[in-house]
């Protein structure tokens, strides 16, 4: 549904997405103080933002705080949203991701996270969420795009974006030189962009 906002409209497989609400219009109305529009915006995007936050932060209670902080920031800043600088959804996810990363990088939180990092598998998260969401097409597209990455690119991108790690940490986790992690993250994201034909 809302994935449409970040993906070229020419793609048939995501045509169901076109039926979702127009996030740009909801943001514009929200910017004028329209709380009902913001509620619609929340309904259309909450699973996407919260899922990302949980994936980075892990701890559910903290994740809820971070998701709430992200929406508050989106509310305060939507007066300054600039459509030429990206889609509404990409903009909202950028804010949520940054909030999540800020949270895990505070020394306290990262300590707690270390313990659960390896033991929580990505697959299990997929299984529980997949049953409930209506966005299989989006997910299939993303997985196909991820499959186009080399294994090393994919590892670096996932550790950086979904793991919330710095490129320095990614290098340490993968046992590769510093510059290499930086390059893999960038090359992986470029491949992802080209495969998804993301329109910024």
């Amino acid at each position: 549904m809302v994935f449409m906002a970040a993906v070229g409209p020419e793609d048939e497989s995501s045509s169901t997405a076109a039926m979702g609400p127009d996030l740009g219009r909801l943001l514009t109305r929200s910017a004028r103080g329209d709380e009902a529009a913001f509620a619609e915006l929340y309904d259309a995007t909450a699973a996407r933002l919260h899922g990302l936050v949980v994936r980075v932060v892990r701890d559910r209670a903290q994740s809820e705080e971070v998701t709430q902080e992200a929406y508050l920031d989106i509310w305060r800043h939507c007066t300054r949203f600039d459509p030429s600088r990206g889609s509404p959804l990409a903009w909202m996810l950028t804010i949520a991701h940054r909030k999540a990363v800020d949270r895990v990088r505070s020394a306290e939180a990262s300590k707690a996270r270390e313990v659960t990092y390896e033991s929580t598998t990505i697959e299990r998260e997929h299984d529980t969420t997949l049953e409930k969401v209506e966005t299989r097409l989006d997910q299939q597209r993303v997985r196909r795009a991820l499959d186009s990455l080399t294994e090393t690119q994919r590892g670096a991108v996932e550790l950086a974006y979904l793991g919330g790690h710095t490129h320095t940490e990614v290098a340490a986790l993968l046992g590769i030189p510093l510059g290499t992690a930086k390059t893999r993250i960038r090359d992986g994201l470029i491949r992802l962009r080209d495969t998804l034909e993301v329109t910024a």
Partner: protein
Amino acid sequence: MNPDTHALAGAYAVNAVTDEESRSFEAHLEVCADCRAEVTELRAAAAALAADVELPPPPALRNSVLSAIAQTRQLPPLPVTEPADPTAATAGSTGSRATAGTTDDLATRRRPRLRPWLAAAAAAAVLAVGTLIWSPWNDGPAQLTATEQVLQAPDAQRVEQPMNGSEIAIVRSPARGQAVFVADAMPAAPAGKAYQLWLDLPGRGLVSAGLIPASGAAVTVMLDGDAAAATGAGITLEPAAGSEAPTSDPVALFSFT
């Protein structure tokens, strides 16, 4: 351009950088249109990954968010800025050369190098006008540093050009009367020397706007002096303590008009 600097665009787009790297890359973004476009695109590409990890928040969070926003004031919008009009910029710089020519005669007695500078200054004209906000999660002007306030000023003008493999720019806010020098990888000056900034002020000629801190890295520095009145700026290599007036040919020139 240092290719290593561009390479950070991916990590920056997904917040996989330290605060220090982030600040230095944002200085690079001020002067690199390629990276500005790439960061926007890669943020969108990364956002797609969130489709794969969807998870609805508990229903109670909705009420909590909506009651919080009901009590939260939104930031004022940024004033709309006109995109740079290259035709107007060209016409403007022609006019300014004519105007500067008259002050040139007065200043030439003290500063003989002013005339050739001004003739060449048209090369680096105003390229872009606008506000760049890379961190929407940061709050408004209250938290911005003095240089950030200039860089994000609604009337900010950006004059950019390459210099010895670095991208450098002067961003000027006439309304604030201030200008900031930005470089993504400022070449280090030779031993015993420093790069000095100059503002070209009508009737006064070239007046020192301060030294650029010694560096092989990203630099963001406020220019001294009245940037609103200035018609241009330049950089020369001077003795480490700086000079009263330029003693060497300029290494970079910027026209504001």
